[in-house]
């Protein structure tokens, strides 16, 4: 620089002053004029070339920072044709960090709360704390949603319980009370045959009430988590035969044949009470929805994956698709009277589902309206 003349030094000083004052355009203009005016006097062209590149990079750097400050990340960092300017590299790094940070915020907005920012010191700490806080909030929200689901389920169970108390239990009681009132008030005017018929009706009504109360009690105990599984191994055929004794009377009344199709040597490991309740409920339903003279078959086979597969099929009235979709669901009204007006609540199927699933099995149904129904369930043998 010392080799340049005083004029050159003075002009360069003016250019630097413009740069310091932020008047880049004036600096560029002055530099252009200087080259024109002093072209022949410049003895060190490399110095001038470096100075020109410095101004150019300073200018591009200033433009870049202005755009970044205005939030425009589509701007390019200053060019560095000689690729040795450490400052330019830092501009690129800043640009890269800001682009990546923008991408990270977009990811966070999409719900990816695993992102972590690793530059800009205190900003990173604050930003990462904010994400952590969002993550905790999201977890809490998820827990609230789960609890809300649980509450809705409990509420549906409560509604079902009150619905059964209010309707299904009340109606048979009304009939029961009606019979007893008639007998108490007019006993002397009835013949022995009429009293016998009334006593039979009372018995049927009492049996239905008893069955309903039993189911209600069991269901209530399940909901309160009071029923544990107590598995044991036993031969299936004698147990099924014993369980079905309790439905014989209702089957005989409708002249329905109950067939048991279980291999003699088939044994099972299961909770006897749960299995008995499931088979009894399914067989009771099958008889309920089968007209006079029909047939109900209770079968069991060794199915896939060492599971015992049960089926309870009937030649009854079957179900349409709409009703099929509502079965086994707490919040759906599925009760309908049997073919001879037998009461039904839908509670028995909910019990069956709970008992089967508690033992690791599954339950499903195949049915067509007017073509009978078959309920299947499995009990895995671990």
């Amino acid at each position, binding site marked *: 620089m010392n080799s340049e003349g005083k004029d050159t030094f003075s002009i360069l000083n003016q250019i630097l002053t413009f740069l310091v004052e932020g008047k880049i355009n004036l600096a560029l203009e002055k530099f252009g004029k200087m080259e024109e005016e002093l072209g022949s006097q410049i003895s060190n062209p490399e110095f001038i070339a470096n100075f020109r590149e410095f101004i150019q990079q300073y200018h591009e750097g200033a433009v870049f920072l202005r755009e970044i400050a205005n939030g425009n990340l589509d701007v390019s960092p200053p060019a560095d044709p000689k*690729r*040795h300017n450490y400052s330019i*590299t830092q501009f*690129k*790094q800043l640009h*890269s960090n800001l*682009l990546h940070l*923008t*991408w990270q915020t977009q990811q966070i907005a999409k719900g990816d709360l695993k992102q972590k920012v690793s530059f800009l010191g205190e900003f990173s700490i604050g930003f990462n704390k904010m994400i952590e806080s969002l993550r905790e909030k999201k977890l809490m929200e998820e827990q609230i949603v789960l609890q809300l689901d649980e509450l809705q389920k409990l509420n549906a169970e409560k509604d079902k319980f009150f619905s059964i108390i209010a309707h299904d239990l009340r109606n048979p009681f009304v009939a029961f009370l009606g019979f007893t009132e008639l007998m108490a008030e007019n006993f002397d005017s009835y013949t022995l045959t009429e009293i016998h018929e009334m006593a039979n009706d009372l018995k049927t009504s009492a049996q239905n009430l008893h069955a309903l109360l039993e189911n209600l009690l069991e269901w209530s105990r399940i909901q309160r988590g009071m029923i544990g599984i107590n598995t044991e191994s036993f031969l299936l055929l004698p147990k099924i035969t014993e369980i079905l004794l309790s439905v014989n009377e209702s089957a005989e009344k409708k002249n329905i044949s109950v067939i048991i199709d279980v291999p003699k040597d088939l044994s099972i490991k299961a909770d006897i009470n749960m299995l008995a309740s499931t088979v009894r409920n399914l067989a009771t339903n099958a008889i309920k929805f089968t007209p006079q003279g029909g047939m109900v078959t209770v079968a069991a086979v060794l199915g896939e994956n060492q599971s015992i597969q049960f089926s309870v099929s009937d030649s009854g009235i079957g179900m349409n698709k709409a009703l099929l979709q509502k079965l086994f669901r707490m919040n759906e009204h599925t009760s309908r009277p049997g073919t001879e007006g037998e009461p039904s609540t839908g509670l028995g199927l909910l019990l069956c589902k709970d008992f089967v699933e508690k033992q690791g099995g599954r339950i499903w149904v195949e049915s067509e309206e007017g073509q009978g129904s078959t309920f299947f369930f499995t009990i895995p043998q671990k």
Partner: protein
Amino acid sequence: MTTNSKYNFKWEDLGDIRLGRPNLGTNTHVAVYRLMQYTMRDVLEKQLGPDKTNLFFIDAGFKAGVEFCKNILDCTLGFDDFGANLADKLLEFGIGVLRFEKADLEKMSFLLTVGEDLDCSGLPYSGVAFCDYDEGFIAGIMHQYTNLNFEVKEIDCWGTGDRTCRFAVELAKS
């Protein structure tokens, strides 16, 4: 590993490294990896010329990317999780620090950087981008994940004076 000319790379050809190197383990010095890559480049360039050599590295990288994706990455993930999975694995294998700068899933266009890149970080300025193998590697991963073809171009590299490798990933035009 077979020795006939119809050799087709399989992941199993990498062998059971833990079994074979109970003391030395799975890691080696980066210089050894680069020694192999750059001496191979030297020999190939002398025999094939620079253009063919570049294509050779891109093709080899592509094959490596496909196999890496098949055997190491979880292709069942959505793109965002796949990106995170890829970044984790590149870090775990010491390949580099992957960061996304832009991702346009509609256009399948991406801008990403790989810091501390295995191939080139720390190389002196030469005016040339070195990471042809990485270009192919990224294209291979993206192809395996999307079943689409990509063109990957390294736009910044230690070889060109930058401190981070930057790759533009676009759908192939044809």
